[in-house]
């Protein structure tokens, strides 16, 4: 049992190496995979989530804990982890500012999404193709400039034109973007920051 307690602690503190070693140790001790996941890994992430919401943990601590969690999960044989969903993400055509996009991608991945990162300067057509090829439920776009924002509208329209209007949800973000702009271009969601982007993506997938 102390192995599980130590594993939980290793994940909370984001210690990847230790998380891996302790997961192996737990398996060697003959502990049930389910017990390791529920009492160790999931329990740790619950604590991390609480600390994050209470402003005790900040984004880097959340991210390293999530990575430790993934390392631990990858050790479980047959525990091919189910993703919450698939998100295709990129900055819009003409926009090379990807700091925010990278952060959202990392946060989504940490939260259990499969993330298809299309990088920067992504055209509406590329978004559509990526959504089809990866069966993505969500397309996430970011723009830093008012001059490139317009491409978000084009992408929404391209998705509808490609017949994906029902199966793919679009979420947008970036400094000049607002909820009212999202409403205007008929995007399904807007998030002002990386943490709420994760919440929004979860909500869209569940819809």
């Amino acid at each position, binding site marked *: 049992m102390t192995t599980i307690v130590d594993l939980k602690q290793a994940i909370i503190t984001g210690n990847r190496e230790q998380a891996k070693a302790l997961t192996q140790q737990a398996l060697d001790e003959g502990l049930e995979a389910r017990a390791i996941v529920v009492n160790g890994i999931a329990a740790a992430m619950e604590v991390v989530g609480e600390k994050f919401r209470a402003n005790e943990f900040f*984004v*880097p*601590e959340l*991210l390293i804990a999530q990575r430790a969690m993934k390392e631990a999960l990858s050790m479980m044989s047959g525990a091919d982890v189910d993703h919450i969903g698939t998100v295709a993400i990129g900055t819009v055509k003409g926009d090379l500012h*990807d700091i925010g996009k990278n952060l959202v991608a990392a946060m989504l991945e940490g939260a259990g999404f499969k993330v298809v990162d299309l990088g920067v300067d992504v055209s509406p057509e590329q978004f559509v193709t990526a959504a089809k090829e990866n069966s993505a439920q969500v397309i996430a776009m970011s723009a830093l400039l008012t001059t490139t924002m317009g491409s978000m509208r084009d992408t929404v329209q391209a998705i509808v034109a490609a017949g994906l209007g029902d199966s793919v949800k679009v979420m947008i973000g970036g400094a000049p973007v607002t*909820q009212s702009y999202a409403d205007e271009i008929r995007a399904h969601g807007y998030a*002002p920051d990386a943490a709420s982007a994760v919440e929004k993506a979860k909500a869209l997938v569940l819809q």
Partner: protein
Amino acid sequence: MQLNVLTDGQIARLHEASLRLLEKVGIRLPHEDVCRLFEEAGASVTGDGVRIPEALVMKSLERAGKSFSIYGRDPSKQAVFGKGKRNYNSISGEALWIDDETGERRYATAKDAGTAARLADALPNLTIAGAMSDPHELSPEYGAAAAMAEMLRNTTKPIGLWFHNRTVSRTIVEMMIAVRGSEEKARKYPLSYPFLEPISPLRFPFDGVDALYETVRLNLPIPIGPMAQTGMSAPGTLAGTLVQENAEILAGVCITQLISPGVAVCYGGIPHAFDMRTTQMIFAGPEQALMAVAMTQMGKHYKLPVYINVGLTDSKVPDAQAGMEAGVTLACGAMAGADVFGHMGICGMDQATSLDMLVMQHEVIGYVERLMQGIEFSDEGLGLEVIEQVGPGGTFMDQEHTARHFRKELWFPRLLDRQFYGAWLSGGAKTMAQRCREEKERLLREHQPAPLPEHIDREIERILAAARKDLEDQGRL
């Protein structure tokens, strides 16, 4: 980090000029005993006029204690002077008080000193808890002692208050002995200090000097700080103000060393500019930053700990003006390297006490303290390895290197707003002033200081009762 505004040559010139002033013009000192001490030491005394020779000034500077600490009721709470530490204090007393419920200005009471102490106790960046109140309902012979009792019940930190006269100083000294349990311990661990304030230009108040005859019993250190005002009680130039302010402080050092050779002093370089339209002092203009830095250089030239008035504001509320004035002056003062930065929590130029303002200034202190830590350099800090790992186009947000360092690299404000617009809006779109008020209310609601041991409380009450009876008998209560 070191900020200077005077050259070595200018420091020497100010020093020389102040010496000439003391020798030629001298000071007015309406205290016969101290005048006699001056005469015996070679000064030229005519009535209450004292002209002080250079040799006496230099000898006094040499004799004066140059480092000291004051200790809270909990002696681990220390304000250390003369050792390169930065101390921050709330104001030792104000006549008026911004009422925390009505927001209206009224006279301050002894009970207010307890509230001030409790708030200071809750604010970690404050080293010395000031009374912030001069109880109006009580006589000057008793008020500060009553304030002291309230404060002892509400803070374990060192205490700042005005020792108005000899009578109340005697009572306060007895209370300090009661807190420590013996006179010896009270000497070893001073709980507070008297502030000797020359009245510019070049005068000393009888009561302020007379009070020292009581405080030297416990060898309490003595900050000396005149508030010379440019163009009003000092020349209309900054340099002239500095000459006179320095002369007044040096005269104060002589007084302390004549009364009690070797007693520790603190160089209170707290001159101010003066507003030629409203005819009142300016607390925190750019001149304040300049003079505070210059005064710090002068004090350090004499190897004395330094007390300056920075981090203050002329604004009545914690607004943009307050943030600008407190921030710039405190940053400059801290970079100059003074020992104590003072008198936080005043609404405007001595217009009242404002606890909301104190809470804002506390945030400014946090900001400036981070500034003073500077940039730490190490291989780990340079981060070449992590830059290599992340490579062009990646993010550092999920790197262990980031997680390892951001908490000590970054300062985390309590009150500054850094939210996204929408979050700020949905959080009530609060201004800094509102956030300060809410933080004050929260701290006063939640913070419980360690209680004063009952036997000490009883002894304090006994001392106060005896003081009241004495004053009553003399018809002075």
